[in-house]
């Protein structure tokens, strides 16, 4: 199965990269865009067909390594 892990900075954490992107978009004339935030997408294949097992494994590795929950939140999509 394939897992997609989306990692985002929590809303209360300042995101200077998002701000830089927003400012570039404004320079391109996109005046209506605001609140740009940058996150990460981590994709992986998991050699299992047991969706509960896959969800558990991905949640565990995300908490252990992929996201730092002091500053980040995450969501998981299994395909």
């Amino acid at each position, binding site marked *: 199965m394939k897992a997609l892990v989306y990692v985002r900075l929590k809303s209360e954490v300042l995101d*200077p990269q998002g701000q830089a992107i927003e400012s570039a978009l404004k320079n391109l004339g996109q005046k209506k865009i605001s609140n740009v935030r940058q996150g990460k997408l981590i994709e992986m294949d998991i050699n299992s067909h047991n969706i509960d097992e896959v969800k558990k494994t991905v949640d565990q590795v995300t908490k252990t390594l992929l996201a730092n929950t002091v500053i980040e939140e995450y969501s998981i999509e299994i395909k």
Partner: protein
Amino acid sequence: MDVTIISFPGTNCDVDTANAVSRKLNTIPKIISCKEKEIPKSDLIIIPGGFSYGDYLRSGAIAAREPVMLDLVNKAKNGVYILGICNGFQILTEVNLLPGVLLKNNSLKFISKTIKIKIIRNDTFFTSSFAKNETVSIPVAHHDGNFFIEKKALMEIEDNQQIAMRYVDPINGSLNDIAGLYNQKFNVLGLMPHPERAIDIRTGSDDGIKFFESMLNFANI
């Protein structure tokens, strides 16, 4: 005093740090790989600066999951002194020996210059040779030095007086201008400035010597 320096792929201050320890702590440190499962008996373990694993994922994140870290955490709990410099500070937060996290500088620029740092506490293993609130010149060189922690935990570390040093002028967006931080037992210190680069006036500043003097004095008591 037995000193061990841990080197990760991408660490680049291990030799400078070993040089500073040899010259100012009068002991030849062991440099070990992060793949080791056991750290030799040490009074002080240093995680030096650099860019472990190219700062992939988050700075310090991958290094913090290396085999050597289990023993490091155990030794920290047993009271061994641990010093993390720059990337070492980032690794210590990632392995939860220190609270908070170091985000990208708010300018998104790499900052490399000698700046003024105020030493807040002078009653610890690492800083006893400084005067209280002494201002010193020490170089910084980092992209991710912007200390962040949630509000409640920030109040806690301030109340516990865990702040080791602050930037005299804000440089990277750090909350409360925090440049260095202790754990609750004060045997673990993480700092963004590089004292090992300030041990000879010919390279700009020798204010870093006092860190090593402090540790040496403590060891001789």
